[in-house]
């Protein structure tokens, strides 16, 4: 009987091998996947028990974990309440951390990031409690406060960039919300706060600056102008361009009219610079016809349209539709017909023109420090996203945009003693509603310190190009003043 006993002992060994392999799979190979599952209460309690890193703006914490005497050990608090809600997001026991840096930089804040591996190992050896890393933002608190105040009670978003680096100086989205009740350890209170927030028709949880998708309206004309200059359709700002009261669109019976129903210059003709000053629809529509959809699309792509960026939050992708026919291209050239963009993308357009045609990759995290303030990741070297236009085109565009502020629709963005370059926009989105008001700008025009995009939802006046200039331009001006200290 010994032979079958030996064979059976091999079976026993095989059974145990299976169990050993299964345990290894669960506790080693799949441990991370299992730990990351949303319904895993252990991971949630774990992350609560660990001191989560702070989010710092200008030396002050805008999100920090405060020790408390309950089973969760640390309470996440947001000292600035609504002001930074869209940047921080919230960290809630019942809801999780679906938004903002609490979501996008979770591995840093929780201490699980790969960069923190060495530290976790030393923590393990020395018995020190592992704590998350502190994340310092590029945000300038003065600019952020100015943007928040200037936007006021309006719905919309403001983004300010440093054109030379891509650092985000301010990012405001209205309406906002207070993340504190959501992070409450009183779970009923947190659940109630979440219900209120998630069912609000205005979607306050949405960071409109990066997740809001708007038609860019006339601000897109800057891109059309860039494409026309780059393509040689026009040679400089003084080139003669058509500017009739109505542009006859091929393939259709409809025409593309100017808002005021008048021609943009004598003999249905004008200069490029004047067309931009007064935001002449027919001029840019006709440039769109000359260029065609693909060239518009390619120019937009050079500014960042179609890219999926992470700052580290995911930025919604801006887009110009593909395969436009002639009338669609004419519409797209004035920022209508399914052209969609985020405020951040339009700020990148302004910044790229200001930075001699070079669009820098936007970023929000300035540095990452470990719990004992050692730098883990210092300020990133600015990364160029693309050279959107030549330096010469950029300088022509700058000249034209300065003229928009000095002589045209962007007058309310003027700052005494500083050349401001800007472009207004009024984007129709829903026939029954007032259009969105846009303004993009940078200042000073030479060697700019700041580029801004402002969108005010339903802030315009139907049939008028002055919406962007009247509503959005003063907001941009307040933000630029905050950066320039004037």
């Amino acid at each position, binding site marked *: 009987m010994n032979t079958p006993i030996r064979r059976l002992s091999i079976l026993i060994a095989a*059974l145990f091998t299976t169990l050993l392999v299964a345990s290894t799979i669960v*506790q080693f190979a799949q441990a991370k996947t299992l730990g990351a599952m949303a319904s895993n209460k252990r991971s949630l309690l774990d992350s609560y028990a660990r001191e989560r890193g702070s989010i710092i703006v200008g030396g002050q914490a805008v999100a920090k974990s405060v020790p408390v005497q309950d089973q969760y050990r640390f309470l996440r608090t947001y000292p600035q309440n609504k002001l930074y809600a869209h940047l921080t997001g919230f960290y809630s026991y019942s809801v999780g951390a679906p938004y903002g840096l609490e979501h996008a930089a979770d591995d840093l804040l929780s201490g699980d990031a790969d960069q923190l591996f060495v530290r976790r190992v030393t923590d393990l050896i020395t018995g020190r409690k592992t704590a998350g890393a502190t994340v310092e933002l590029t945000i300038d608190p003065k600019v952020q406060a100015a943007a928040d105040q200037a936007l006021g009670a309006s719905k919309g978003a403001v983004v300010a960039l440093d054109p030379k680096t891509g650092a985000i100086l301010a990012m405001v989205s209205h309406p906002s919300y207070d993340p504190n009740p959501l992070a409450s350890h009183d779970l009923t209170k947190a659940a109630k706060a979440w219900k209120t927030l998630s069912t609000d028709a205005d979607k306050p949880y949405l960071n409109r600056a990066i997740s809001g998708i708007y038609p860019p309206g006339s601000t897109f004309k800057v891109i059309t102008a860039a494409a026309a200059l780059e393509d040689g359709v026009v040679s400089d700002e003084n080139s003669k361009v058509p500017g009739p009261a109505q542009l006859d669109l091929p393939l259709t019976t409809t025409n593309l009219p100017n808002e005021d129903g008048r021609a943009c210059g004598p003999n249905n003709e004008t200069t490029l610079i004047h067309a931009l000053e007064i935001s002449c629809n027919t001029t840019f529509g006709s440039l769109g016809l000359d260029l065609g959809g693909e060239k518009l699309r390619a120019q937009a792509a050079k500014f960042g349209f179609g890219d999926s960026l992470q700052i580290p939050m995911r930025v919604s992708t801006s887009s110009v539709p593909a395969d436009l026919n002639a009338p669609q291209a004419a519409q797209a050239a004035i920022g209508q017909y399914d052209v969609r963009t985020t405020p951040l993308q339009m700020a990148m357009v302004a910044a790229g023109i200001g930075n001699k045609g070079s669009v820098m990759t936007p970023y929000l995290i300035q540095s990452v420090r470990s719990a004992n303030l050692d730098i883990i990741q210092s300020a990133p070297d600015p990364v160029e996203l693309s050279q959107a236009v030549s330096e010469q085109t950029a300088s022509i565009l700058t000249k034209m945009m300065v003229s928009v502020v000095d002589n045209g629709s962007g007058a309310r963005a003027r700052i005494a003693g500083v050349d401001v370059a800007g472009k207004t926009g009024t984007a129709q989105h829903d026939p029954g509603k007032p259009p969105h008001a846009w303004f993009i700008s940078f200042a000073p025009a030479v060697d700019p310190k700041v580029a801004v995009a402002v969108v005010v939802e339903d802030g315009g006046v139907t049939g008028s190009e002055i919406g962007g200039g009247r509503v959005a331009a003063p907001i941009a001006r307040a933000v630029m003043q905050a950066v320039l200290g004037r």
Partner: protein
Amino acid sequence: MTTTVEPLTPRTRRGSELLLLLFAIAIVLLAWVTTDLNRNGTVPTNIVPVAGGFTVLVLAVHLVLRWKAAYADPVLLPITTVLNGLGLVMIHRLDLARGKLGSDGDAYRQLIWTTLAVVLAVTVLIALRDHRLLRRYTFVSMAAAFVLLLLPLVPGLGRSINGSQIWISIGPLNFQPGEFAKIALAIFFAGYLVQTRDVLSLAGKKILGFTFPRGRDLGPIVVAWALCVVVLVFQNDLGTSLLYFGLFVAMLYVATERVSWIIIGLLLFAAAVVFALTAFAHFHERVDLWLDPFSQQSLDRSNQLANGLWGMASGGLTGTGLGAGRPYLTPFAESDFIFPSLGEELGLFGSVAILVLYLVFCERGVRTALGARDGFGKLLAIGLAFSVAFQLFIVIGGVTRVIPLTGLTTPFMSLGGSSLLANWVIMALLLRISDQARRPMPEIPVGVAADDPSPAEVTQVVRLS
């Protein structure tokens, strides 16, 4: 193979056992102290009486072995001690998490059961001076197994806990008679097969290269199968049913050396499982939970398996440390899920260590079977060893998602008196058989040759150990 010429005088190895035992006790105490330090920051106040009592208890078994079974395997008792002790520590740890202290605690009851189990094991060792005596009770064992198995179905006595009708209640005590049925069945199978193995292994027709048994010899396997189907259907207990049937097929194979029995057995069991799957929603549900334990639908139904897996995963390689994890989040953390509970706090290293301890336990059983000089002893030893291994596979395979989860206890560790008593008896029986196997033969092994076809092999095994 060589035949030894010079007479061997194998050592008893009781000294090694004592050393291993002290080591085992040290591990358990360290685990206990760590738990309390991690939970409360203090060393348990009752450490002296409890640890002292535990030490006295296992050392008593050691002394009984020196007295009654000097040549018994020296590794089985230390392994049992570690496993039983770690089980106690984990149950105590879960008590602490749930605020069940002192005599309210599950650990307190489990400690009493441990004491009773040790007393029972010692009784077996003293009363049963030769395992071959059990062969006389082959058919008594069969009857006992049938009664034990069917008891939970008796109205008024049987109780259904967590959907399985495998319990009986006598006053305040709940008991799982199936645990003892396992031993009775092993004795019966061993006794029966040793008698009939010649018929079962020689007669038959050859089909496709395998010799298949004659129709009339199929009787016993059909009866065993029918019994298992009864357990499966009426007691709603797939795990136990699988365990009994696996045990029977394995022993049948060892007795007859015929692969055809395994094939027949597997086919029969597959048929039963297919039937159960189609006929009972209960089994279907388990398979669904097994295939995808993490879907919202599954979690709403039962988050037990998912929680066990999350627990093990959160332990990672090194574990959270005893007392520092959250095994209490898993339902039945102290019984069916005690392995994930330990895995969470001791990590993969701990899980592997525990599995290796069980593996060594079972392989010592196998070695005992190889060394036993009588067919009955061989069959009984391999049957008991295999039952422990297979039971572990069913329960730990269930919690680690190798197979669908079916409720079975983890030998020596799970909370529950019947399981502890039964497993300590299994250990006592293995010790008894191993003593016979390793004991030097009083004379030239003439008598053995009659019982076993390969005395040379036996001699070799004796020399190795």
